[in-house]
């Protein structure tokens, strides 16, 4: 999954918002990345360090919160964390009707910066 494009999207999104909010320098960007998304945190970090540039984001750090794949059985309501073998099967009642509660996230949570 092309982390460079994703980070480019992130920087554009934050830049536009920062300019509209009178923020001259961004010190931190916080991302939330679910484990079922196709984005690799290490690659996101590398891409960020590579393309952040030397203006608004020159001193920015990127913080990434990884979210585990949380599931909920629609038969018995049991919530569980999905194992690495992707067993979409309820550990309590063996039900197969499983909702994904979290794990697909790929969003910018917040950013911090200094105003003009």
């Amino acid at each position, binding site marked *: 999954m092309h982390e460079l494009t994703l980070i480019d*999207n992130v920087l554009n999104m934050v830049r536009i918002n920062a300019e509209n909010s009178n923020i001259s320098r961004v010190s931190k960007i916080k991302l939330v990345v679910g484990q079922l998304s*196709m984005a690799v945190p290490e690659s996101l970090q590398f891409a960020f360090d590579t393309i952040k540039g030397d203006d608004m984001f020159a001193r920015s750090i990127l913080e990434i919160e990884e979210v585990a794949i949380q599931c909920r059985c629609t038969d018995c309501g049991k919530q569980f964390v999905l194992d690495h073998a992707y*067993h979409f099967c309820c550990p309590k009642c063996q039900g197969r009707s499983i909702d994904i509660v979290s794990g697909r996230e790929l969003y910018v949570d917040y950013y*911090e910066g200094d105003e003009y």
Partner: protein
Amino acid sequence: MVQVNLSRNILSANDLLAQKNRELFASNGNLVINMMSSPGSGKTTILEKTLGKIKSQMVVGVIEGDLYTDQDACRLKQPDVSVIQINTEGGCHLDAKMVEKAYQDIIQNDQNDINIVFIENVGNLVCPAEFDLGEDKRVVVLSVAEGNDKPLKYPLVFRQADAVLVNKIDLLPYTDFNMEKFRQDLIQLNPGVRVFEMSARTGKGIEKWCQWLREEFEKKQG
């Protein structure tokens, strides 16, 4: 120092366009199928056979996605089917903006109202899974020559699939493909998925898949 909360999806621009596509397709009564797979699984051959069976009953349009060449569009070109080729020139997936433009070309070209649109995505089991195009159904094609271990290796695309086409079953005697294990892994990942075993080359299994398409089209009209 100020903190600004955004809570915005990194792919929000694409998601917004995909939703607009979805509304446009619905307003035109179209069933739109996004076909995804590795390169060489047989998507285009499946489409060749599918068009042969359904084009007398439904007006079909095809959006072809490849990095380069219009070879697939040329293979599918026929007088009563609109085919538009998108060349991403390096892009490894189609996105909603590309599809919207190609769709506008299809409905401009076609004198009759289109019923069903097939989007043959770029051959790739990773990135297409993340890019909503506005489709109604996601179909993943896998050929038996690729091995039965792919669902657990590519969980997102298989989890999201509405149907999986297992192609090239005429090659089963010459491969180690374990159909039972494949179905087990797939069902554990995606219990509700429909599975169609077929050989686009011999034609076996194509009719059942076409029947599903007809049923899904009828449901969409309802």
